[in-house]
């Protein structure tokens, strides 16, 4: 059959869930962060495909915003991770349990 909205959405959903898995499974903050980027991209894909098949551009505008915001977020996040690494010499989530219970 013809490739349609479903296929794109399926891809985006699977990408999204891959991101989720990454967040759960990996212990390295950077990699976790990459997985989060994957999830954002999945959302982007969904939006773009919707906008294509709904004949509306707003979705793409939204994607534009998302990309920008994501970039900013990444910048701040990475800076934060760097600062943390300077203190702790580690980017492992297990090493970040000074506050609990």
């Amino acid at each position: 059959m013809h490739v349609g909205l479903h296929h794109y959405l399926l891809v985006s959903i699977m990408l999204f869930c891959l991101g989720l898995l990454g967040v759960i499974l990996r212990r390295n903050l950077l990699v976790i962060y990459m997985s989060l980027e994957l999830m954002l991209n999945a959302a982007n894909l969904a939006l773009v495909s919707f906008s294509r098949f709904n004949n509306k551009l707003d979705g793409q505008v939204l994607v534009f915003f998302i990309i920008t915001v994501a970039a900013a977020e990444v910048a701040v996040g990475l800076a934060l991770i760097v600062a943390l690494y300077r203190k702790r010499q580690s980017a492992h989530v297990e090493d970040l349990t000074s506050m609990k219970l």
Partner: protein
Amino acid sequence: MEDFNNMLASGVVQDVFFYVFAALTLLCGVLVIANPFSRSPVTSAMFLVLAMASLAGLFVLLHAFFLAAVQVLVYAGAVMVLFLFVIMLLDLKEEERRRIKLFGLVAGLLSVGIIVSVFVKSLATLNTDVPPPTLEGDTISLGHLLFTNYTLPFEIVSVLLLVALVGVILLSKKKLE
């Protein structure tokens, strides 16, 4: 040449390309989060770049040319470079293989499984008989929309970028006197 055009018209080529890019994207995604050969963040980052690039491909297939460009520039370019810089900066070594907590893994997979299933189930309810897509994601229309309807979010994003800028400086500056 002739029949290639036919194929383009009938969309077979696009389909083929779709499957290629989709497969590529997902494969790279998998390799980002779980790479059997290396657990070094660098490889993850590289595969992420690939994933982004192939996503850009999908964007093209969806006629979102501008976004495809932005995707490549911002993500595959800026963002990933940033990642790599940081990785180099911190010279993160191979993530030593700690024992994965079985319970965590199972429970995690379970919950993700549930989420996937719900997503897919609900995807099935989407009505499929949409008119054939005609929309072109070209720069002019996008820009027009951006600067008429979406001026305010656009401005807010600018503030956001400023904040991010300040934040990054504050956080990564060697010493604040």
